[in-house]
């Protein structure tokens, strides 16, 4: 069996940043496995600008951001395989992949990083009544068809879901000469970034209908229209408000799901909230030697944060290869009062107070004038005042060394939203 020190599953933004930082931390025996025919992952189809302001202090498009990292991988001569699909990872850190070139190969790894991203929720997951005419795409599929394959997907468009991909595609379809008739959002708020509502919808007078959903699709052969309706506070459609919109294309931007079939094979505990693995502050999952980072762990708003998190995963994977896992208790970080989840979910009581520590969180709804508060054994350790928090924008707290010491010796750690209007 082939042996490698570090195998990274996925050559998108997470895998690339992880590989570079692992290499720089002293690990030279690295292999990246990428199922597509090029590195860069989803960035290759995200041709809009807005990437990299945190990392590079300039505004890049997706392909440019990917290129910066790919160049660093190439410069370090880190090995990668393209067209290599990983079909299994087990709890003994054995990774099995298939590729045209190599056939079926199993690698015995000292550490495995899963950085395989997420995929879109499909139509089947949201149960829209109607025929199966053509013209219904997930927003990301349409994005790839238009931006990479140069195809046209439709002329009159309705978009369901106001997540970032939906918003970006509203502008993109407008740029391609299509008429976007409406963006329809089930919730009373958008899960997308504010800047995207401004520059993708408002700039082109595209209506954004909150608390609405698509209740039926019409048309055999090709889509001829959709019926939309308002929803009540329980998100049930109010059929008396139903209205027909003529269109030939429906794009679905209804959420992203971490792609965790491989993690499950490796007995990694999956969080029911994020859909990603449960990791400790060293980015290790509940299976020893298997790490996660990027959108496979939890869906991020900004690729910059994916890169940052993945660089940490790379360093910690190398630390594990060199020293093994410390034999220590892990406590669960509790979330309450509107904080939906925290990454990491577990905190090691390993006595390491010098490594950096950062919590990333998402809230359940829109809240104003709240204080994001971290408690250790009931005592406030850190506070961050926020004029507004929304489910669409990830919150983050980075701790100082004295705070890390308190947190990592506590027996109970909680993250909560205090005060404000909910």
């Amino acid at each position, binding site marked *: 069996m082939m042996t490698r020190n570090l195998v990274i599953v996925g050559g998108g933004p997470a895998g690339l940043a992880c590989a570079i930082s692992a290499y720089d931390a002293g690990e030279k025996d690295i292999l990246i496995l990428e199922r597509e025919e090029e590195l860069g992952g989803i960035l*290759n189809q995200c*041709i*809009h*600008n*807005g990437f990299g*302001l*945190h990392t590079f202090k300039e*505004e*890049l*498009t997706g*392909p*440019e951001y990917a*290129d910066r990292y790919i160049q660093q991988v190439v410069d370090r001569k880190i090995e990668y395989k393209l067209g290599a699909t990983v079909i299994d990872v087990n709890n003994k850190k054995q990774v099995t992949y298939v590729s045209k070139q190599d056939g079926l190969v199993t690698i015995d790894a000292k550490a495995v990083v899963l950085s395989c991203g997420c995929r879109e929720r499909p139509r089947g997951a949201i149960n829209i009544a109607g025929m199966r005419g053509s013209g219904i795409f997930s927003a990301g599929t349409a994005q790839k068809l*238009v*931006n*990479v*394959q*140069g195809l046209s997907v439709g002329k009159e468009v309705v978009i369901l879901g106001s997540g970032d991909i939906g918003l970006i595609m509203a502008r993109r379809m407008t*740029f391609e000469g299509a008429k976007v008739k409406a963006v329809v959002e089930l919730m009373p708020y958008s899960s997308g*970034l*504010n*800047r995207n*509502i*401004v*520059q993708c919808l408002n*700039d082109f007078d595209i209506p954004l209908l909150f608390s609405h959903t698509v209740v039926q699709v019409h048309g055999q052969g090709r889509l001829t229209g959709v019926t939309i309706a308002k929803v009540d506070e329980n998100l049930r459609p109010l059929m008396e408000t139903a209205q027909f919109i003529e269109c030939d294309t429906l794009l679905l931007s209804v959420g992203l799901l971490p792609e965790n079939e491989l993690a499950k094979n490796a007995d990694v505990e999956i969080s029911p909230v994020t859909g990603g693995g449960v990791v400790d502050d060293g980015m290790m999952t509940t299976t020893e030697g298997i790490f996660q980072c990027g959108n496979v762990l939890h869906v991020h*708003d*900004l690729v910059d944060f994916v890169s940052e998190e993945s660089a940490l995963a790379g360093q910690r994977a190398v630390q594990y290869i060199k020293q093994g896992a410390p034999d220590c208790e892990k406590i669960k970080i509790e979330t309450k009062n509107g904080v939906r989840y925290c990454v990491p979910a577990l905190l090691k009581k390993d006595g390491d107070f010098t490594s950096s520590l950062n919590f990333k969180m998402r809230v359940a709804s829109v809240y104003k004038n709240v204080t994001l508060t971290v408690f250790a054994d009931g005592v406030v350790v850190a506070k961050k005042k926020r*004029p*507004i928090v929304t489910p669409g*924008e990830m919150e983050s707290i980075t701790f100082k060394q004295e705070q890390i010491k308190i947190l990592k010796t506590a027996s109970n750690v909680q993250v909560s939203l205090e005060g404000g209007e909910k």
Partner: protein
Amino acid sequence: MRELICISCPMGCHLKVEGDTLENIVVTGNGCIRGVIYAKNEITAPKRMVCGTVKIEGATQPVVSVKTKEPIPKEKIFDCLEQFNQTTIFAPVNVGDVAISNVCGTGVDVVVTKGLAKK
């Protein structure tokens, strides 16, 4: 007073803007200097980056992504896109290669954002 959401980066700062000329504009709520620049431009002469694709021959894909190197006046977006549609370039291309120079008389070049080798 006008409320704007800064689009300079994904933080999307909520800006409060007083005044309506370059000289008297006062911006609050911005996280960095870009917010002030954005508000001034947005009030006096709004600009946008334009990203899209142009046709490419001899590469592994039929189109390649491009962007305006700097933001261009908002009212020229669709003229600029029309230029994208009429342009064909040839592989190989590198990130930063100029695909269209001085697009629509804006003084701004359109550059390739993805390197593609010759097939």
